[in-house]
C-alpha cells in the first residue's frame, strides 16, 4: 500500500500539480482546499504526511498547524508557502520542514522522502 499524503492549499492549480507529481512519485495524494476541510479529512483518514500552505482564506496554515499536530501526534507537516519570511516565525517551527513554493519540485520531494513516517 502506498503512503498517503494530504495537501492543503487553496489554489486549485497547485493542488493539481502536487497531486499529479506526487502520485507519479508513488504517493497516494488527497487534497483539501481549506484548513477546515483538511482537518475534517484528517479525522477520517490516516496520513503519513501533510503539505500545508500558510496564506489561505478562513483559517490560516499557522493556526491549522497547531490543530493538526495536537490531533495527530507525530504526523510530520511540511509547510509549503510562497512567502519565505514565515520561516523566521517560530510559530512555524513545529513543522518538520519549510519549503518555499517553486516550479522546481525536487526540494519538496526530497523533504517528503526525508520526513515521511
Amino acid at each position, binding site marked *: 500500500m502506498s503512503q498517503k499524503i494530504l495537501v492543503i492549499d487553496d*489554489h486549485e*492549480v*497547485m493542488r493539481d*500539480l502536487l497531486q*499529479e*507529481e506526487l502520485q*507519479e512519485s508513488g504517493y497516494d495524494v488527497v487534497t483539501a482546499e481549506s484548513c477546515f476541510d483538511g482537518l475534517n479529512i484528517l479525522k477520517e483518514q490516516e496520513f503519513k504526511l501533510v503539505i500545508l500552505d500558510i*496564506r489561505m482564506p478562513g483559517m490560516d496554515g499557522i493556526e491549522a498547524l*497547531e490543530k493538526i*499536530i*495536537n490531533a495527530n*501526534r507525530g504526523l510530520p507537516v511540511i509547510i509549503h508557502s*510562497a*512567502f*519565505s*519570511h514565515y520561516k523566521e516565525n*517560530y*510559530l512555524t*517551527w*513545529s513543522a518538520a520542514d519549510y519549503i*518555499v*513554493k*517553486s*516550479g*522546481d*519540485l525536487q526540494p519538496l520531494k526530497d523533504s517528503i522522502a526525508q520526513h515521511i513516517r
Partner: protein
Amino acid sequence: MIENLHFSNLDQILPGWFLLNLEHEITHWSEAAARTLGYKEEDVLNQHFINLLPDYRDDRENFLVHLQGSNPSSSIIHHQVKLKQKSGVIVEALLSLYPITQEEKKYKLITIEKVTEITELLQYTNNKKSQILDQYNLFQICQNDLEMKDIFDAILVSVTSGQGLKFNRAFLFLVDTHEKKLKGIQAIGPSSKERAGEIYHRLQAEGPSTLSEMIRLFTQEKSSHQDQVNDLVRSMQINLQDINHILIKTLYQRKYIEFKHEPGREPHESYKWLADKLNSENMLIMPLVWHGRSVGLLIADNVITETKISDQDIKSFIDFAEVASSVIISVRILSRLEQSITAGDEANIKLKESQNKLLEQEKLAAKGQLLNQMAHEVRGPLATIGGFASRIYKKLEPTNPHYKNMGHIVETALTLEKVLTSILDQALGKAPEKRNFSDTAKVINKITSLLGEEITDRKISVNLNIQGDLPLIAVPDHHLFEILNNLIKNAIEALEEEGLLLIVAKKTSDHISIAIQDTGPGISQADEDKLYTPYFSTKNKGTGLGLVIVKKLVAEYSGELQYNTRLGKGTTFSVHLPIYHQQ
C-alpha cells in the same frame, strides 16, 4: 544686668528694639517690639534672629554677617529690611545695630524704626519675583551677556558723557551667582590719568549735542584706551564670600559708597587694592539693585578733571543706577526668551524631520507589504507554470519538436522566480547584516534583568556563575536570546517561591557550555516523553513551543542540548554551542 540699663526709655521713642548675643540669638525682647511685631517674649527669647526675616530671603542665614562684615564692633544705621510679623504679614522697617558691652558681656542692640506694612499682594509678588529670578538664573552671567556689550556701552557712555552724568570714567561689574563672583565686565574712559588721550578730551569737551549721537560716536571711535581700560576691569573678579571687601560690602548693603582712599587708614586691604587698580582715590560705588537684589555695581570717578562729586551728581547717579539695573535685567530676560524661542524652533525642525522620516519609513513599509503581497500572488501561479512545464518537459523525448521550447518555458519560469526574489530583497531593503556571534554574559544579563520583576516578586534567588572573559559564541544575538530565554523562563516557572536558580557558563574546549539549573519538582517520566513535543505544555499559559524552538535552534548552530532531572530535586538543562572564530 539688663534691667539696670535705661533701655526702658527706648520703648517710648522707638517702635521696637531687642538685644542679640554674639550668636545672634535674642536675649532681650522689648515691649515695643512685641507690640510692633506681635511676638511675645516667650515666642522669641533664645531664638535666632533669622526667624524674624521673611522665609523667601535666600541670604537669611548670613544676613547680619553680610551686613556687619567680619568686624563685630561696626554699627549699622538705618538699613532697610523686611521683617515677618507673628501674623505672617511682612513689614518694612529701618534697622540699626549697635554693639554694646554690659558687664563684660557683648551684645548687639537692634532698633527698628519707620515700620510700614507691605500688603499681602506685594509680598506675594515679591516672593514670586524672587522665585522667577532664581528659576531663570537672571543673576547668572551667561554667554549672551557678551552680546549685551552695546547695552553696557550705552550705560557707561551715559555715566560719562557731557550730556549724561558727566563723570570722567565708569566701570561696570556684574554678579555671577553661578560662579559666586562679582566680575568686572566693561569700562569707559582712560585706564589712568596719564593715559587720558586726545580723543577722550575731544569727546568730553566738544562732543555732539545729544546722548544718542555721543553713544554712536563713541562706538565708532573706540581707541586703544578702551581696550586697556576694558582689560583692566575684566581682570577684577571678587568672590562673593569675601564680605569684607569694599565692593562686596556695597553689594550686600545695597547702598552707594563715596569711596575715599586715605593711605595709612584703611579699614580693609581692599580699599588700597581698589585705589591701586583704578589708579584713583575718590570714586562713587553704586550698587545696581533690582527688586531688592544686587545685580552688580557701577563705579564712577573724575580722575582726570578731579572735579568734586556733588550731592546732585550722587542723586542723579542713584536714579540712573535704578534705570541701568532694570535695563540690564530686561535685556537678560529678552535674551533668555530669544534663546528659548530659538531652542524651540530647533526642536520643531527636528520634530518635523523625524516625522518626515517616520512617514518615509511607513511608506517604505507599506510599499514592502504591497510588494510582498504581490510576490505571493505571482510566485504561486509562477510555481505552477514552472511545475507543469517541467512535468511535460520530463515526459518529452528529446526528438520531439516541442522538447526545446518546453525547456525554455521551464528555465524562464525558474529565472522569473529568481528575479522575483531579488526585486523583493531590494524593495524590502535587505535586512541589515546581522552579526553571527554574540556575548553569552551580555545575553544572560539581559534576560535576567528582563525577568527581574518576576524573580523579585517570587523571592527567587538567582546565582549567576559566568566564567570571566568567555569567548564569543557562534550564534547571533537574537537566537542565543531565544534559546536561553526559553530555558531560563522554564526554570523560573518550575520553581516554588524562594527557590534557587543557578546559571553556569563556562568554556569547554571548542564550545561554550551553559547550564540552567532549578530546584523545582523535576520532570515526571510521563512528561519527559513529551518534552520536545510541540504544543505540549505543563503550564497554563505555555505555547508548548519553547523547547521545540530551543532544540531546533541548537541543532541549527551545530550545538547540543541535554537535560538531567530528578523528581523532587530539580532539573538542569545544558546547552553546548560552538565558539565563534573570526573568518
